[in-house]
């Protein structure tokens, strides 16, 4: 028995590799659970489609679409006699009343919708998870304070607040994302996440961490919050839906200073009086359908994730 064989028996595996393997294994199991549900797969498919849709726009602009004609904000097609023009090989979804290509606008806006949705979801989740974990962990006055604040925030109807804010300042994409994120972060999402955190707080591994000398900060951020992340991810999906929807409604009423988005496209349609006309369907339907399908996709993925996160909802 030489030294060499012993060494091979106890090969040193770095910690990160162990973690990576564990992560990949849980990812595989969760994916199998997620894939069981056709609804979630449909949602994911739609999101991927829109992702590719957004990516295709800069490529098209740099290759086949001359920017003078196809620029989503400032383009104008001189060779078409009357705008809005119906769909043609030149403009696959027609042009809007200002002579801009509808398909180009639709694709250009997609990335901003994604950015808005994801930014407000991240803001919400960071706020809600931190507050939920902290107030569940400490309880007492901190808990009371944040929960009463949440009660207060959910008393306010959402849209009027956004309308007041838009009268107050210029509301662009980033401001809108922050406001939506903060309002839903301090409101309903916190309450749900806190109740989940309460259930995790009494689990034995938290006690074990405390016994082995873990501080409050360590327990909250290394034990409590990682276990809250699945449910946070679930609520992210619903926030994305709400954010895209709010942007569309606000832009529809012309209350934002966003240059181009799906809501702005519908607003333009309304401003030029084409809103309720069926003969100019390409002005309204592509943008509305895009809003609906993307919102529905995130919502469906959220619902499917619900079944992954919550074992009681799974099929036996």
């Amino acid at each position, binding site marked *: 028995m030489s030294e060499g064989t012993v060494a091979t028996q106890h090969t040193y595996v770095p910690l990160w590799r162990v973690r990576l393997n564990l992560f990949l294994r849980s990812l595989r199991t969760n994916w199998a659970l997620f894939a069981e549900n056709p609804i979630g797969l449909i949602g994911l498919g739609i999101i991927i489609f829109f992702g590719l849709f957004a990516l295709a726009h800069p490529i098209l602009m740099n290759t086949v679409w001359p920017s003078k004609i196809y620029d989503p904000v400032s383009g104008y097609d001189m060779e078409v006699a009357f705008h809005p023009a119906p769909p043609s090989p030149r403009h696959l979804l027609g042009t809007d009343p200002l002579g801009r290509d509808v398909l180009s606008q639709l694709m250009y806006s997609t990335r901003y919708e994604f950015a808005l949705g994801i930014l407000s979801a991240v803001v919400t989740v960071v706020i809600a998870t931190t507050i939920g974990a902290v107030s569940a962990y400490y309880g007492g006055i901190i808990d009371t304070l944040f929960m009463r604040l949440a009660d207060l925030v959910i008393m306010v*109807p959402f849209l009027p*607040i956004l309308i007041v804010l838009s*009268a107050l300042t210029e509301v662009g994409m980033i401001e809108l994302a922050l406001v939506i994120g903060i309002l839903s972060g301090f409101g309903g999402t916190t309450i749900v996440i806190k109740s989940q955190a309460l259930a995790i707080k009494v689990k034995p591994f938290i006690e074990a961490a405390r016994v082995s000398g873990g501080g409050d900060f360590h327990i909250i951020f290394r034990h409590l919050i990682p276990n809250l992340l699945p449910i946070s991810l679930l609520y992210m999906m619903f926030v994305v839906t709400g954010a895209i929807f709010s942007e569309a409604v606000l832009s529809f009423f012309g209350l934002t200073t966003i240059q181009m988005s799906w809501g702005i496209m519908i607003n333009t349609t*309304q401003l030029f009086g084409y809103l309720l006309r069926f003969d100019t369907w390409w002005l309204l339907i592509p943008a509305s359908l895009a809003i609906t399908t993307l919102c529905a996709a995130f919502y469906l993925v959220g619902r499917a994730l619900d079944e992954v996160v919550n074992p009681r909802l799974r099929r036996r």
Partner: protein
Amino acid sequence: MARFVLRRLVRGAVALLLFQTLIFALVQALPYDFSAFFIVSPSLRAFIREELGLDRPLWEQYARWMWGFVRLDLGRSFLYWPAPVSRVILSRLPRTLLLFLPAAVLAYLFGIWLGKEIAWRRGGMLEVGASLFSVAAYTSFAPWLGFVLLNVFGWYLRWLPYQRLVNPNVWFNAPVTVDRVLIGLLGTGGGLFAGGLGLWWATRRITDPLLRRAARIGGLTALGVAAWMGWNASGIGPLAADVLAHLVLPLGTVFLLSFGETMMTMRAAMLDSLREDYVLTARAKGLPGRVIRDRHVARNAILPVLARLALSLPFVLVGSLVVERVFMWHAMGQALFDAIEFQDIPVILGILSVVGVLVLLAHIVLDVLYAWLDPRVRYPRGE
């Protein structure tokens, strides 16, 4: 129990005070004031500001408003000067309630029923189809949904009138105001709903299922006929019919927009309570599937869904600005939007605080109900 209720009431009062302060601060942050909408000389503008009380220091305006609110006086509207805010709100109330209350109730009933069905028959095409349809309806962009419905049923099929509250030709020389008819319709609807509930309650002890069903259907028909006869005898039946015809499309839109969420919630709650041991027991006892579904699973699953209904009902009052715009059904949402646009501060504060009070009441009633049903809630841990 009394201590519990008292504590909730005190907590509610504190929350209300904070809420009032919050919305007051928010409204004060608006950039200019009502007088800026008049193109008049500075002295006249100063007079307007003085008349409306806008020249006073902020703390005095705040104290005045709070004192008025405590005495249930919401002040006077700037835009409809000198009408009190309460009258502005009350004048919009019938049309808001007539559109959004039935839509909310119908959406909840349908959502609960459909959620129950698809959770029970899990994994079929029905589940995928119903989920996709309801989520697509739920996430539809309201103007677009309204547009589709208007075009299909109003323009293309010409089944229903579109836009506006009423048809002016029918209402020419009408003996009553629109609001009077709306209130009458609301009363009829409420009466029918209460009558239906009473009928369900009265016949629930009839054991023979055939007889029970016959009694329920017969009773509902009698109620419907009675309402029909009443409106016919009143002489304003055609006017009411006109309002109802205009109501169908917006009501359908709000219904489609809102039932999906209830359905998904009910489905999740059903799946959750399907796992309980008493369901297994019920199956072991050999109870028929329908009884297990309705009496054991749905009974328990419905509680969180009804709690959501109670919490969302106050927001019915604000309505949906988008639907009101598309169908030109000018109700509370439009009033709030106008008030914000013209800096009609008392009306903004009035509507928001009425909604706030109702939300708070719903919370307190729910808390007390839960505490009454479940004693564990009454005593917080460690007390």
